[in-house]
C-alpha cells in the first residue's frame, strides 16, 4: 500500500500558502488558505476538494517542495468527493485496462523513447532528432501496458494509479534501456515526481523530452535555420510536476529562432486547456471551460502568436480546432524542432 509522503509540519509552517492563494480558479486569501489547509491535513471536508479543477499548478507553486495537489486528490478519494460524474470515472478507469495481449519486450541498447499511451503519435518521432533513440510502446494494441496512469489525478483516484503503476514501471524497465526519454510530460512527472512522493522505487532513469530535444538540437546546431515565427506555448498540467524542465521551452525556442510571445497566461500563469474541466460536476463547468479556453486563445492572439506549440496530446486534441479558427497554427514541439533542421513536420 503506497501512501503519500506529505510533510504536514512544513505545510503548517508555510506562511506563503501559495498553493491556494495563487490558485487562479479559487479565490482565497492567506487566512482562508491556512484554515482550509488545516482541514485538508486533518482529512476533513473542505471547499477546496469540491472546487479544485485539477490543474496541478499548486504542485509548482508550493515553495516547500511538498505535494499539495497529491494531498488534495488523496483526500478527494478518501472522502468520496469526485470531481467528475461517476460514469466518466468508470469510463476512465476502464480505459486503462490492457485487453489485447502482452507486449513483446525487446531490449534497448542506449536510450529508449517511451510513447506511453500515445502509440498513435509514433509518426511524430521520426527524422534526425530521434535517430539515436529506440521507441517503445509504438503498438497501439499494447500501449496500455505503458500507460503512466497519472490521468487519474483528474479523477480523484490515486488508488488506481498506485495499484497499477508498478506493473507499468516493470514493463518499461524490462526494456533495459540506459535511460528513458518520455514523449509526454505526464509520464516524466509520474516517474520523477509522483512515484517518489508515494514511496515507489523507479527502476529506470527518466529524461524529459524537451531536455532531450534541446541536447539533440545542440548536437545538430550547424543544421538549424532560424524559423522566425512568433509562438505561444500551451503549457500542460503535467508540466507543473517538472517545473525544473520548463526552462527548456525557452531554450529550445531560442535555438530554433522563434520568439516566445509575452502574454498574460505564460509560464507559471498558464491556463489549463480545459479538457478536464469540461465534464466536471461543478455547475456551469462546461461554460467555464469555454470561457477560459477563449480567454487563453484570445491572449495568444493579442500577443501576436502565429503558432501555438503543444507537447501534450490532450491539450492538442482539446484546443487545435479552436486555435485554428483563430488563425493560429497548432504545432507539436517536436515538429517545430524538425522544421528548424530543415525537415518536414510529421
Amino acid at each position, binding site marked *: 500500500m503506497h501512501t503519500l509522503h506529505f510533510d504536514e509540519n512544513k505545510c503548517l509552517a508555510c506562511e506563503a500558502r501559495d498553493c491556494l492563494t495563487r490558485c487562479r480558479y479559487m479565490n482565497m486569501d492567506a487566512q482562508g488558505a491556512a484554515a482550509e489547509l488545516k482541514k485538508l491535513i486533518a482529512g476533513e471536508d473542505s471547499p477546496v476538494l469540491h472546487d479544485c479543477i485539477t490543474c496541478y499548478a499548486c504542485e509548482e507553486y508550493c515553495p516547500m517542495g511538498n505535494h499539495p495537489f497529491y494531498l488534495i486528490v488523496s483526500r478527494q478519494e478518501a472522502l468520496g468527493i469526485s470531481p467528475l*460524474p461517476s460514469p466518466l470515472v468508470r469510463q476512465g478507469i476502464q480505459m486503462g485496462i490492457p485487453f489485447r495481449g502482452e507486449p513483446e519486450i525487446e531490449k534497448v541498447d542506449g536510450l529508449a523513447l517511451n510513447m506511453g499511451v500515445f502509440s498513435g503519435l509514433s509518426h511524430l518521432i521520426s527524422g534526425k532528432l530521434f535517430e539515436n533513440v529506440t521507441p517503445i510502446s509504438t503498438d497501439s494494441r499494447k500501449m496500455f501496458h505503458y500507460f503512466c496512469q497519472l490521468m487519474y489525478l483528474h479523477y480523484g483516484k490515486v488508488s488506481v494509479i498506485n495499484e497499477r503503476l508498478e506493473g507499468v514501471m516493470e514493463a518499461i524497465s524490462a526494456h533495459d534501456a540506459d535511460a528513458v526519454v518520455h514523449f509526454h510530460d505526464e509520464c516524466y512527472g509520474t516517474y520523477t515526481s509522483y512515484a517518489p512522493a508515494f514511496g515507489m522505487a523507479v527502476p529506470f532513469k527518466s529524461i524529459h523530452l524537451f531536455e532531450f530535444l534541446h541536447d539533440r538540437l545542440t548536437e545538430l546546431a550547424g543544421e538549424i535555420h532560424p524559423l522566425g515565427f512568433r509562438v505561444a506555448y500551451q503549457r500542460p498540467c503535467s508540466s507543473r510536476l517538472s517545473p525544473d524542465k520548463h526552462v527548456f521551452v525557452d531554450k529550445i525556442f531560442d535555438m530554433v529562432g522563434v520568439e516566445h510571445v509575452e502574454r498574460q497566461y505564460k509560464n507559471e500563469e498558464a491556463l489549463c486547456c480545459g479538457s478536464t474541466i469540461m465534464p466536471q460536476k461543478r455547475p456551469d463547468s462546461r461554460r467555464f471551460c469555454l470561457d477560459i479556453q477563449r480567454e487563453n486563445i484570445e491572449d495568444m492572439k493579442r500577443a501576436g502568436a502565429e503558432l501555438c506549440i503543444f507537447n501534450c496530446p490532450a491539450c492538442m486534441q482539446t484546443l487545435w480546432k479552436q486555435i485554428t479558427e483563430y488563425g493560429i497554427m497548432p504545432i507539436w514541439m517536436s515538429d517545430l524542432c524538425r522544421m528548424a533542421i530543415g525537415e518536414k513536420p510529421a
Partner: protein
Amino acid sequence: MDAVYRALVDIVGSDYVSVQPEDLFTYSKDLGTSEPGKPDYVAAPKTTGAVSRILKLANEHKTPVIPLGGGMSLAGLALPLKGGIILDLKRMDRILELNEKGRYVVVEAGASHGKLTSYLHKHAPRLMHSEPGAPPAATIGGNLAIHGQGDLAHPYGFNSDMIAGMEVVLPTGEICRIGSCAMGEKWYTLHPLPDLSLFLGWNGSTGIITKVSLKLYPCKKIREMDIFCVEDENLVPEILYELTHAGMAGDLVAMSSKLPPYSDRLHMISIALSEDSRQEMEFKRQILFDTHLAKYIREGTGGISMAGRDVERPMVSKASDWKKGGGFEYVGAILPVTDYPECYRRGAAISAAHDIPYTVLGRVIGAGHAMMFSWSYAFNRADEQSIAQARKALHETDDLVMELGGTIWKPAVYGQKLLLEKMDANTLQMMKKVKTMLDPNAIMNPGHWEVD
C-alpha cells in the same frame, strides 16, 4: 446453353450474365451466418427495360428472381432460397436529377449511398440524404427494400419515410411509377395519391424498385458529435426524452459494448450536432447540456464524455474483425425507446452465454417514437462452430425481441417466421392477397415473407 441463359444474354449482353460456378458460388454467399443459397444465373441489367424483360422471361419459365443491391443486409435477404436468377442491380447507378431548391434527387436504385453522399457533397453541399450505418456500397434501393434507417432517423424517421417517388417493375414486368412522377416527370412527392408503396420492406418479393426520388435535407457546414455517458441503463430513456424534446440533434444513438473495455457497462449516447456557425452550435449545446442534461451532470449520474468530435463515416465492417474472423451479424429490432434498459440487459446476457463480447446499440427514430436496436455477434468465418454459435445467439435474440413485443427489423427467414406466426390473421391474409395479386407465379425472392 439453356433458353433462359440465351435470353438473358440477349437482354443484358454476355458480359453481364453468368452461369460460371465461381459466380454462382460468390452470389450464393452472404456476409452473415446464413446458409448459402445458390442461384442458377447471375445477371446485371443496366436499364429498367432490361429488368422488365427479365421479369417477363422469368414468369414464362417460372424461374425465381432475387433482386440484389449492395448485399449488405447480413441476414441473407438476397440469397436464392429456391435457385433462380440473381439480379445484381448495381449497374443501375445513375444519378438522374437533382432539384436543389426543391430538395430532392432522383437516382437509379442500384446507386450506392456512398456515391450519392459524394455527389451531394460536390454538387449540393447544403443538402444531404439519410445515409445508413452500413458500408457505403449499400444501395439506395436495397436499403428501401428492407426499411433501413440512417443518420437522419431522429429528425425524419425511417429512410423509407423520406421518399418522394418511385419507379418499380412489377413481378409480371410492368413498369409503374408511384407518386407525382406517375403523372409526368416531376418527382417531388409520394402523397397525396392513394397509397401504392407496396414495395418497401418486402425484400423485393413484390417487385423491383428501379428508381427513387429521395428527399434531401439541410446539411450544415459544421458537423460534430458529442457523447453523453451514463452508467445506469435505466436513465437512457429519460435522457433521450430530454434530448428529443430539445429537438436539437441530428442522429441520436445509445450504445454499450464489452470491448473496448472503456465502454463496458456504460451507455454512450452520441449526439450529432450540425450548424452553420460556431455560435449556433454553442447555442445548441447550452440548451442540451446546460439546460436539459444539467441535472445529471450535477448529480454525477451522467457526463460529457466527448465534445466536438468530427463526424466520420462509420466503419461498421470493423466489427467483422472482433474475432479476427471476417464476420458479424446482428439482429435489428424496432421497439419503444423505453425498452432500452431491458434490451441492453437481456442482450448482454445472451452474448455472455455464447462467449461473444456484447454490443447493444439503439438509434432513435423520429422524435423518440421508436428505437432501432441492434445486437451484434461477431464470428470467425473459418470456424464452423463459431458461426453456429453466432447463429444460435441471433435466433435467441430474435426470440427475445418477440418476447419483448418488438418488431424484428429486416428479419432473416427465422425471424420472418416468428413475426408471421404472431401476426394478426387478417393482416396475414392481406399480405397474402397483395403478394398473390402482384406476383401470381410467386417468382419474386421466394421464401421471403411467404404466407402459407
